[in-house]
């Protein structure tokens, strides 16, 4: 069990990076990280040793994040669903200010954000991302396309020709 705990901590930095990008908020990210590891400890018996611990932990974090959004839907700060038309939320700019990328991520629908972060930031393959999110690979690919295109156009101000400013 001590070994299992240590293995969990080894994954904490990557989980924390993912949480940071997902929430856009340092404190919320650390709460998510802690909840994730606590749940993993509580459900250690469900983990099949030899299978991919890291993927299992990302799966847990995905569920916690989505559940958290659902239960806090009535809260005033949440801006996850189709926020493209909304103004920027009053989330604390804790990552050295809310730059273009940070702002664009916050506007991205959760399903798109998760895919783009798992693939581009965390380096998961499409198959793994599909397993973590429990969606078909085809869905991963189509969401990835939409998410990336949205970000690309917001960051590089790309027109149809892909011309950058």
């Amino acid at each position, binding site marked *: 069990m001590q070994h299992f*705990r240590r293995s969990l901590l080894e994954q904490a930095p990557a989980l924390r990076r993912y949480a940071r*990008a997902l929430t856009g908020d340092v404190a919320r990210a650390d709460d998510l990280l802690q909840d994730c590891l606590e749940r993993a*400890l509580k459900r250690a018996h469900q983990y099949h040793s030899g299978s991919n611990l890291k993927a299992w932990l990302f799966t847990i974090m995905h569920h916690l994040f989505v559940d958290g959004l659902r239960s806090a839907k009535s809260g005033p700060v949440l801006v996850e669903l189709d926020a493209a038309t909304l103004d920027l939320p009053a989330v604390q700019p804790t*990552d050295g200010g809310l730059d273009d990328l940070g702002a664009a991520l916050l506007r991205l629908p959760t399903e798109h954000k998760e895919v783009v972060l798992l693939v581009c930031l965390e380096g998961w393959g499409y198959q793994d991302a599909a397993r973590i999110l429990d969606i078909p690979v085809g869905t991963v690919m189509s969401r990835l396309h939409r998410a*990336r295109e949205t970000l690309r156009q917001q*960051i590089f101000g*790309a027109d149809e020709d892909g*011309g*950058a400013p």
Partner: protein
Amino acid sequence: MTSNSKPITDVYLHAYVDGQLSATQRAEVEAYLYANPHKARQVEQYRMLTQQLHDKFDASMDEPLPAAVLALGQERAPAPSPTLWWGRIAAAVAWLAVGGSAGWLLHSGVDQPQQVVISSAQQHAYDAHRFYVREGRHVVEVPAADKDHLMKWLSGRLGAQVGPADLTSAGYQLLGGRLLPAGDYVSGIYMYENAQHERITQYISTEPGVSGIDAPQCEAREILSMCVWNKGALTFVLVGAAPLAELQTLAQHVREQSMRPAL
């Protein structure tokens, strides 16, 4: 423009950027990009986007983990007990307070990544506190009544004038001190106690711990808080069960007083 029979869709372009294609497929995409500069630019921007994500978020991986997360790595407290829960709240409050006022290393870690592993000098300080704090009568070798003698004795062995701090304004009285071995180095402690019989240990050692840390850096470690800084060749550590923010204030008092030339 390409003579490929297979149409290159956007899905292919993403898979290309993400390294999900075989060598043959890669060659096909590259030929296509060569013939379609605006698609090549799009692909380039996808790549830059990935790079920007890393630039923005990778630093978070080097920051020290929160104490509450580190504690999960320890075999302890099988089920969340009320005590643990309160401990977590207290820790969280302390962290917020410190983070807000003094910029503790957890949140300033981006500039200067700190290692989670503490130095051996800090570990010795931690152990010394835990070892002596529960002693009733023999907690110190030289009592506060012999303060001058104690100070001369420790200063002589540490090779620098280091006296105890006056923490009465913060509610702590000096109990006394003792000399300690620390491998090849020399260490001394001054111990203080408040009206609730809570004790804190000021540990001073010739053992290098941190360098260039002028302001006390504090962290919670299990149930204790610990602040470390250095002055010249000496490492200073303050350890106690006080909340992190309180210990940090005490550490600043100790530091300020140790900066003054001793009389």
